[in-house]
């Protein structure tokens, strides 16, 4: 239990690769929170995928004890939040649990779109912000220019920015002092009031069940307390309370201003609601915290096991993943092309990739992923609204009055020389320009874009046309009507449901042609010729023909060759298993995703 004046709660705002995790590692290291021999890169990122991709998916927290220059010891609680746009909503929630932020900007790169979005979230949460310029040791560092940019673009004073190199450790003591001196202590908190704590995040641990990260506002939380979640109404007995250093360490109690965890034999993450107010069952607090809306999936795709026999294993794996991730939704789906699988909803494309990677890696299930889609609003002739998650479920157009699609506001920051390509890309994707400004050699443009043009390969394309120099962030801005149609793909005259997609009518021919050409490359030649067509309703709008294989025969096969040739044939046969039989045609699994990538 620490008095409020000696507590500092903060988060770190940074663009990916600007050094957030390295700075966190250094803070932990310099304060001796972790023994030197236990030090490893990205201490806070516990999942392999997080470490490998250098991203944070779940909020993590660590408690650091710091003897400051004023001779007193402070408790610093860092909440490490996800930085990616997919998890923007999670970031906002975590920010409300702390009072200040370090804004880390790469001194060689400057402010990026993602930084901008997250720093505004911090400002919205009334944070004090300390700018930190990282990588000042590199020859390409331009700290003065970047300081100026921070003042121009974000509008915060950067005169006293800390200049550091998280990699070499230069400047880290200044950061620790700045946290104590410049970030505020928790403003309120009374240990004698009824317990009032914010549920910051919850995660599933296979040994302990659900672990909740909590920020105490008022009162005291102890082991053995009977608590109540005010929103969900659930009541639990607290088995343990503790803090992360960053290893889980039990403490006797958590008091006002402190951040730690509680473990109360909660079975699944779905039973908890992030932002909920935790209080005592007996002595409840009067007014709960405002709380948050649960985040909702915006991107959907089908996930199918490559080997149909893996379906039950896949169901188990998905259910286990869902234990830890309430924002991910799934329901069973049957596809004529792909068999049994799941239609899954995600917060964004990164979220989709992360879940897919985890299913494949942690559970060893090979998956076929179908084209990502968004939720369309269908308005029928009799005035009803239906949500369409899967283009395959599109009803007959004659019953549909009009279709609305989700739109986003996308902010893109890019060096001047690539601006033309970025504008072209946004125009191609049916974007409407809302704003275009210049700040010190970089352009910032804001577009109103249909989400369905972005969910697939927009980010990849953006990276490729700007050689990786653009940064991108978006927020949903609502639904708008447009001329949308369902395009079917027919392979050997049979529609392949998993390749159906919603497209804008004016872009249908172009997309259809590109899809047919791509499929022609992706489907191996068969013993017969295969027509590949794109159609809207009954009307074919694009067509390609994959010619038949002409010759595939071994010239010599005698007694001494039998064993070897047999093995080769068995290999050829096994290769076919990696494909999906559709009618008479075998389609390689990667075709379901690769066919949609647009190269131009």
């Amino acid at each position, binding site marked *: 239990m620490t008095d409020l004046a000696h507590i500092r709660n903060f988060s770190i705002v940074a663009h990916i690769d600007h050094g957030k995790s390295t700075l966190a590692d250094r803070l932990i290291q310099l304060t001796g929170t972790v023994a030197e021999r236990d030090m490893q890169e990205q201490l806070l990122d516990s999942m392999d995928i997080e470490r490998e991709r250098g991203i944070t998916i779940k909020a993590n927290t660590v408690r650091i004890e710091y003897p400051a220059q004023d001779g007193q010891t402070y408790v610093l609680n860092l909440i490490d939040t996800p930085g990616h746009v997919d998890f923007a909503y999670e970031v906002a929630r975590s920010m409300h649990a702390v009072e200040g932020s370090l804004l880390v900007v790469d001194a060689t790169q400057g402010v990026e779109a993602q930084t901008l979005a997250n720093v505004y979230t911090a400002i919205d949460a009334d944070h004090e912000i300390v700018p930190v310029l990282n990588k000042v040791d590199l020859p390409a560092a331009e700290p003065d220019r970047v300081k100026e940019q921070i003042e121009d673009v974000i509008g915060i004073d950067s005169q006293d920015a800390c200049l550091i190199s998280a990699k070499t450790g230069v400047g880290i003591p200044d950061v620790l002092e700045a946290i104590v001196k410049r970030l505020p202590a928790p403003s309120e908190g009374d240990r004698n009031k009824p317990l009032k704590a914010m549920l910051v995040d919850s995660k599933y641990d296979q040994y302990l069940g659900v672990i909740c990260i909590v920020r105490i506002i008022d009162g005291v939380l102890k082991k053995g307390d009977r608590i109540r979640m005010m929103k969900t109404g659930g009541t639990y007995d607290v088995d343990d309370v503790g803090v992360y250093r960053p290893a889980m360490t039990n403490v006797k109690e958590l008091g006002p201003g402190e951040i730690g965890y509680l473990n109360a034999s909660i079975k699944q993450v779905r039973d908890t609601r992030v932002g909920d107010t935790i209080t005592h069952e007996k002595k409840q607090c009067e007014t709960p915290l405002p709380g948050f809306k649960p985040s909702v999936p915006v991107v959907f795709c089908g996930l199918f096991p490559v080997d149909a026999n893996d379906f039950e294993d896949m169901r188990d794996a998905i259910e286990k993943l869902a234990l830890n991730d309430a924002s991910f939704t799934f329901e069973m789906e049957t596809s004529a092309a792909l068999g049994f699988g799941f239609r899954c909803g995600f917060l964004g494309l990164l979220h989709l990739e992360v879940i897919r990677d985890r299913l494949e890696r942690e559970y060893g299930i090979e998956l076929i992923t179908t084209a990502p889609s968004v939720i369309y609003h269908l308005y029928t002739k009799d005035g009803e609204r239906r949500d369409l998650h899967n283009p395959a479920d599109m009803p007959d157009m004659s019953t549909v009055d009009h279709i609305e699609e989700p739109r986003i506001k996308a902010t893109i920051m890019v060096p001047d020389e690539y601006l033309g390509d970025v504008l072209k890309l946004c125009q191609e994707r049916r974007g409407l320009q809302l704003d275009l400004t210049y700040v010190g050699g970089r352009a910032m443009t804001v577009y109103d874009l249909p989400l369905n043009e972005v969910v697939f390969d927009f980010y990849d394309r953006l990276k490729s046309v700007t050689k990786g120099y653009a940064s991108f962030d978006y927020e949903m801005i609502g639904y708008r009507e447009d001329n949308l149609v369902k395009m079917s793909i027919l392979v050997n005259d049979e529609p392949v449901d998993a390749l159906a997609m919603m497209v804008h009518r004016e872009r249908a021919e172009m997309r259809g042609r590109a899809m047919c050409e791509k499929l022609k490359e992706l489907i191996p030649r068969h*013993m*017969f010729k295969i027509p590949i067509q794109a159609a809207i309703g009954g009307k074919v709008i694009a067509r390609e023909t994959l010619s038949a*294989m*002409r*010759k*595939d*025969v*071994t*010239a*010599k*096969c*005698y*007694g*001494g060759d*039998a*064993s070897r*040739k*047999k093995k*080769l*044939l*068995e290999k*050829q*046969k096994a290769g*076919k298993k990696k494909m999906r039989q559709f009618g*008479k045609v075998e389609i390689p699994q990667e075709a379901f995703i690769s066919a949609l990538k647009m190269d131009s």
Partner: protein
Amino acid sequence: MAETWRDGGFGLYVHWPFCEAKCPYCDFNSHVVSHVDQTRWAAALVSELVRYGRQTEGRVLRSIYFGGGTPSLMAPETVRAVLDASRDHWAWANDIEITLEANPRSVEINKFEGFAMAGVNRVSLGVQALRPDDLRRLGRLHDVDDAVGALDIAKSTFNRVNFDLIYGRQGQSLTDWEVELREALDLAADHLSLYQLTIEEGTAFWDRAQAGKLRDLPSEDLGADLYLATQEICEAAGKPAYEVSNHAGPGDESRHNLVYWRGGDYVGIGPGAHGRVTVNGQRSATVARRAPGDWIKAAEAGSGDLEIERLATQDVWAEYLMMGLRLSEGLDLDRAREIDPARAEALNLDPLVDLGLIWRAEGRFGATQQGRLLLNTLTAELL
């Protein structure tokens, strides 16, 4: 497991691993050495033969095949020693076929008489091409005149003569091949093996092809056209394909190779030789040690075999299918059922019959000419 090998017959394969030079397209087990102790090799081959003879007593031997390497480098006495031993252990069929592979070069031609005296009644000449530039590119040590001369002597020395040609060579046009093939047919051997050039891993051609230095190889389309033209020309000349790459009139087929394709049993002796031997209903695949030095020491110590794999029903099935589909006569459905009733039952021929790739008639089925061009894919489909 059923003893259906009897339907395919029983043969003996003898591998002679030595060559005077290594050909750039060849992936066979062949070695170049300066001196071979013929007496020692004869004794080792005979001791291997005896070992197998004991396991397969009472069988009728339909054919013997000396392959290589270059078996025409064997001393006629070595050939005779093997033949004599085979007669001691098995009953010879009245029309036993005894083939020896030979290069069309004078040193070897001079030995033809000796081979015939030893009992060889068929030779297979590695002519490969009737164009001097191509012979050179294929790394052959003979020229066109040597080949034609060798054929003449072979025809007067042996009852039956085959020669091999390789087509689909670098820069070879359809017309080039048609002309050359007609010339070959005019040379009037009773059997022709016509192989489309295949770049096999582990050969000099493979390395050259990988390095991009093997130019002007035929496209898949030209390869298919060359194959179809070959079928048409040979058929018109009375030598239809009875197997993917083998052409002969009725009765002139290679009885030994038919043992392989019809799923018969064959004993394989000599370095790297493969065999298929069914004993008490269990079919096994045998492989002898590959390196000549290792093999001869092992053979002298009791067995030259490196491994003996007991084949599962599904392996026997796969081999029957893979080999039988190469034959124009196709496979026997009753025999297929006997080998593996469940897989025979599950065999779904209809879609392939509809595509014109498989024919089915009178209890048999096989690949059509169209199907034979796609035989690897077709076989994988049926496995």
